[in-house]
């Protein structure tokens, strides 16, 4: 009954190039539509505004201590917690709305591959993440104006927060693909993200193998090194794997419609 549906492209020598070209075009089309929707909707600005307000507050309090450090660590590390609210808010409509409007049926019956839909959408939320982080550069500029921060931790910190954010977004996107109800999607991704942060706390109070495993899956555990200026490939690989894993699940979930 269930036959495979995603036909493998018949790859001829010149075929790979056309295949890649069409994939790029389709993915970009989805990316572009999604980005436009975000940047023209008031919701995105509200979410961005709230994010900046909270991180701004964290920044001010990090430099309002008796002996402030000229580093972004003070506000960056607590900011990761903000992502467990930010990522669900950004991703909840991503696929849930398409299901609600019935437009997913339109996309899936258009000559475009399922993974192109998912990747294009993911690229769009990564762009939002990027734009949001660019706005927080303001805090770093302040640091440079009034202090003498180290360049290294600044760069790794930003790389880390981008990876952390990307991983959170991939989790949110999976949640959004599971339901046509945006609120449900937001709650599910919030729950999963919260759990993945709490494993760090759990790791702190356990020991041995359990602690290692918990630490291993913890979303925040892999972030600390970045904010200290340490670039450890393990951590980079961890976040990339989380993204790949959840993107894969999202793609499978979208295409499962075709074999149900």
């Amino acid at each position, binding site marked *: 009954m*269930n036959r495979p549906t995603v036909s493998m492209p018949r790859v001829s020598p010149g075929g790979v190039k056309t295949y890649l070209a069409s994939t790029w075009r389709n993915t970009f089309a989805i990316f*572009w539509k999604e980005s436009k929707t975000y940047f023209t909707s008031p919701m995105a600005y509200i979410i961005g505004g709230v994010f900046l307000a909270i991180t701004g507050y964290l920044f001010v309090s990090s430099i309002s201590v008796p002996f402030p450090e000229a580093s972004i660590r003070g506000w960056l590390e607590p900011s990761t917690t903000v992502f467990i609210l930010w990522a669900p808010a950004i991703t909840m409509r991503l696929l849930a709305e398409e299901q609600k409007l019935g437009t997913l049926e339109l996309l*899936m019956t258009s000559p475009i*591959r399922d993974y192109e839909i998912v990747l294009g959408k993911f690229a769009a939320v990564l762009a939002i993440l990027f734009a949001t982080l660019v706005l927080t550069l303001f805090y770093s500029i302040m640091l440079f104006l009034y202090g003498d921060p180290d360049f290294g931790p600044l760069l790794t910190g930003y790389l880390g927060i981008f990876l952390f954010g990307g991983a959170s977004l991939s989790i949110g996107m999976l949640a959004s693909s599971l339901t046509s109800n945006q609120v449900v999607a937001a709650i599910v991704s919030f729950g999963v993200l919260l759990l993945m942060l709490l494993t760090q706390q759990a790791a702190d109070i356990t020991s041995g193998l359990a602690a290692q495993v918990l630490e291993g899956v913890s979303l925040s555990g892999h972030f600390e090194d970045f904010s200290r200026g340490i670039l450890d490939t393990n951590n980079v690989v961890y976040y990339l794997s989380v993204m790949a894993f959840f993107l894969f699940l999202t793609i499978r979930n979208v295409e499962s419609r075709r074999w149900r």
Partner: protein
Amino acid sequence: MPDTMIEVNGLTKYYGEHLAVDNISFHVEKGEVVGFLGPNGSGKTTTMRILTGYLPPSTGAASIAGHDTMTGSLEARRHIGYLPETVPLYTDMTVEDYLQFLGTIRGMRGPYLQKRIDVAIERVKLGDYRKSLIHKLSKGYRQRTGLAQAILHEPEVLILDEPTVGIDPIQVVETRELIKELGREQTLLLSTHILPEVSAVCERVLIINEGILVAEDTPDNLAVRLRGTEQVQAEIRGPSADVIRELRALEGVTSARYIDTATGPRYTIESPSGNDLREKIAEMVVMHGWGLLQLSVVPMSLEEIFLELTTADDEEASAR
């Protein structure tokens, strides 16, 4: 280029235990306008979703322009323009942006896409609304936006799932007119549970009931084939109670009814097919000295054929 645009072979679809489409086969040739008629829940949407590659068949196969909808899904989809039952619209986009996006994912771009958008908007007569936000449009105009999307890429096959459901009567007439025009230039499969729609638009009708294809013919042929009863309409001047009594007394008459229409009183007389009652009625009226103003055979409407077909008891269905 193959001439068979839609080919369906022994298509069956189960949702879990529930049998939604039961071993149906049909084909649609290039340029044909075919109606897919059946009451709600008869399996029209399911069949169309299989044709468009959105759902897999449980058994059997379907192909579009020679491409199997499962193994050649992407290629098959390139040849289809599809308007699903619930019109899929990004309501916070303008009509133009919506078409722009859908054109792009169908591989069109630049001036060519612009031209196609202009043509599509022109064909569905949406000119005044191209810069309007979709959520501000009336249902009828949303439907047109959906149609514009379906014809945007000049697909070889147009599949429309109940395109006039839920829009107001005036717009229904206009939309039907529009679909008729589209059908002149395109292969079209149109599903509906509204009978006048198929007879107004289609050259051929497939009737589906409870997942089974129960009849397939031209609207006219179906009328002949399925005429179980013959209907005569008469305009008779005389005391209606007496007229009715005498009509009912005639040999072969199964029913006679009095209808007060806007153009005057009428009688509808029914008999088993093959009986032309007109002579007998005329004789009887003259005998009583009443006035016979009009007498005509009513061609059976598709609506009745449909009722006939879909409420037919088992023996009638299996006899076919």
